[in-house]
């Protein structure tokens, strides 16, 4: 039997991989998509209108649920008791943290990946991000600018459906939007306060379908979106890209297939991948003319670092030595929380039924002058609060008895809190490499993180705490406190940089089309190509850049740079 050779192998089926599969299959290529875990099934894996009282441990989970697993860290934002007993999240593959590093690597291995459970904030990057180095003299510009990427943002927005308004802000280019989410009482109050201290408070760019879009149903506001949407009213691979790729009949989807390395031919070009079939633990090889990596940022670099050969002694396509470097994450944390006395005793309002970032405070620092603040660049803040699934404010109230119970209800609409999204600057201290000693249970050398927050992002964190004090004063709120420390690195899930794109093959891993400089039939469709992290989230840009990369790849097929199998 002749060995099957595909046109393209796509490793990973999340925001970037799913998009690549769809576009390439629709263009008529034979695609083999390889997913590390099982198939995600909304009918069994998502919340589906269950309430917390339907769960045995009421959301706290069985303390023994991860016994015997290699990676035992607790529930993350996406994982919960609703998916317990299913095998969607990665607990079998361990990773290492270098001394002093405390990276929290959360992985969804089900098809669609983390993009089944994402937060849906979808702002465009602008030239303030692409050309930040021109403004403040630090680091390098991206190899692309806004004029070049803007049409792809439009394509991604049209495809995904993003609700927002036109805002004319220098740090946030406007896009093509569905009607925005209506504001809640707390939004009006915060907006008035923010206005007094000169901080913008605006509708977020939220990829949630406020109206029917491309055949996808409008949101029915059952809440708890991050537990998976039962009808696909926000963009996720499971409801969008994967079924569309499958409909072409050009897709072969392999599940429970953990890719360990890229195979190369006698010239060092990619010829396929080697994966471990999880149930049998056997190693299998698949071949293709082109390989797309979209395994999620750091996993993509992990696979490349583990792809060592005569041609690539330090990992495939790593002649620059930049593979695994430039790791940057969003610093997350709550810089201030408290309550709004104006809303005491008001009837409960449905504040969390969209479970989304209805609003945000987009970057307002260093806009007039890039060196206005003690730090360079800037951060954004998401505010949230009101009536939620649990009265988490109960600890702020003293006592017991009927009076206590009534006070819990009286405060129920009032709590508000913040989430800072501060970009870390690339630093030589922040990178990933292969642990020289440890291997995971499948025999694959483990990934090791080296990461610490730098002074610039920590200055933003301190700045945001003062902003929250001022904001609570200005809006007539009372503060309860603030996080003492930012969250663990990795919490945001927005890490970037480890396969950065650039024009110079000596200092970057891929070219501006996300095609490896050294290996022209290797492309990358995830956030690892982004040279810097911005104050915005990564998912919509991953989709936009993946669309653009695939378009370029299809051109290369047309022009004979790549030959069909």
């Amino acid at each position: 039997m002749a060995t099957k050779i595909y046109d393209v192998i796509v490793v990973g089926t999340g925001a970037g991989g799913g998009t690549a599969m769809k576009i390439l299959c629709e263009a008529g290529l034979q695609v083999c998509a390889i997913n590390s875990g099982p198939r995600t099934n909304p009918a069994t894996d998502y919340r589906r209108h269950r309430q917390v009282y339907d769960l045995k441990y009421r959301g706290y989970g069985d303390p023994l649920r991860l016994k015997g697993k290699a990676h035992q860290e607790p529930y993350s934002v996406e994982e919960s008791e609703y998916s317990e007993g299913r095998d969607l999240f990665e607990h079998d593959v361990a990773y290492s943290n270098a001394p002093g590093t405390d990276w929290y690597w959360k992985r969804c291995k089900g098809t669609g990946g983390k993009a089944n459970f994402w937060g849906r904030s979808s702002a465009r990057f602008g030239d303030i991000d692409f050309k930040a180095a021109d403004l403040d003299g630090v680091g390098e510009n991206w190899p692309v600018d806004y004029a070049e990427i803007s049409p792809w943002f439009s394509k991604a927005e049209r495809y995904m459906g993003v609700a927002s308004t036109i805002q004319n802000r220098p740090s946030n280019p406007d896009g093509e939007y569905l009607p925005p989410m209506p504001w809640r009482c707390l939004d009006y109050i915060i907006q008035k306060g923010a206005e007094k201290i000169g901080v913008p408070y605006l509708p977020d760019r939220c990829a949630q379908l406020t109206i029917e879009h491309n055949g996808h149903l409008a949101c029915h506001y059952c809440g708890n979106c991050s537990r998976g949407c039962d009808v696909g009213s926000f963009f996720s691979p499971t409801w969008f890209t994967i079924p569309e790729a499958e409909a072409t009949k050009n897709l072969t989807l392999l599940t429970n297939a953990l890719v360990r390395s890229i195979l190369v031919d006698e010239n060092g070009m990619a010829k396929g991948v080697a994966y471990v079939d999880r149930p049998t633990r056997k190693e299998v090889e698949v071949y293709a003319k082109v390989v797309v990596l979209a395994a999620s940022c750091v996993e993509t670099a992990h696979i490349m670092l583990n792809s060592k050969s005569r041609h690539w002694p330090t990992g495939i396509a790593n002649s620059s030595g930049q593979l695994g470097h430039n790791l940057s994450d969003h610093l997350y944390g709550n810089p201030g929380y408290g309550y709004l006395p104006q809303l005491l005793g008001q009837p409960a309002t449905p504040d969390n039924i969209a479970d989304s970032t209805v609003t945000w405070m987009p970057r307002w620092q260093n806009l007039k002058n890039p060196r206005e603040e003690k730090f360079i660049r800037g951060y954004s803040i998401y505010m949230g609060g009101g009536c939620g699934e649990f009265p988490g404010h109960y600890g702020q109230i003293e006592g017991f008895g009927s009076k206590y119970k009534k006070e819990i209800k009286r405060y129920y609409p009032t709590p508000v809190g913040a989430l800072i999204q501060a970009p870390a600057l690339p630093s030589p201290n922040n990178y990933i490499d292969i642990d020289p000693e440890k291997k995971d249970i499948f025999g694959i050398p483990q990934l090791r993180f080296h990461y610490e927050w730098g002074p610039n992002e920590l200055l933003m964190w301190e700045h945001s705490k003062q902003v929250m004090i001022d904001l609570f004063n200005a809006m007539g709120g009372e503060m309860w406190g603030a996080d003492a420390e930012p969250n663990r690195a990795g919490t945001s899930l927005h890490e970037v940089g480890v396969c950065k794109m650039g024009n110079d093959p000596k200092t970057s891993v891929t070219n501006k089309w996300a095609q490896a400089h050294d290996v022209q039939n290797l492309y990358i469709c995830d956030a690892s190509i982004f040279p810097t992290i911005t104050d915005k989230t990564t998912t919509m840009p991953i989709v936009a850049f993946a669309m653009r990369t695939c378009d370029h790849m299809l051109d290369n097929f047309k022009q004979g740079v790549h030959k069909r199998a």
Partner: protein
Amino acid sequence: MVEHIAEMIIPQDDTPGARQAGVAEFIDFMVANRAPVSGSRDVRSTEDALEMGNEAQNRFILGLDWINTHCRAEFGRAFMDSTHEQQNSLLEELAYKTKFKPTTESGREFFQMMRDYTVVGYYTTKIGLESLGYPGLRTTWPKMPGCTHPDDPEHAHLREPTNPMIKTQQSTS
């Protein structure tokens, strides 16, 4: 005793209390399965979770003992045999900063934990969520309703509904 204290923390008034919501059964289940609902420890592994769960279980059981021992010393009988006034005054000593005594630290820790379990156990039931008017119990909304007072964006003129129950409680305490 757990059921009784839970009902003292969240009693039946114009909405059902902890007893009707089955809070004691929840607490039994969580304590028996060593599943804490509060705690400062950073859980990184099953080992951490177990350690924390064991600690919670021990502290809970010792706490119940502390309450009885304290009642015997103060009132000459176990907690459940003490009068309602005695039970109430003990919990007040454990719950209100102004009534704290240097000798009741262990009792206060227990009360804190008991209150955490009770509040979690109550507000994760349908009864508890209904008592708050939790809007998420309704799972289909035609659209997000949003604020109904956009003419008063600062919400400076909302009137807080009077709550006769709170006033009565304050005047009797």
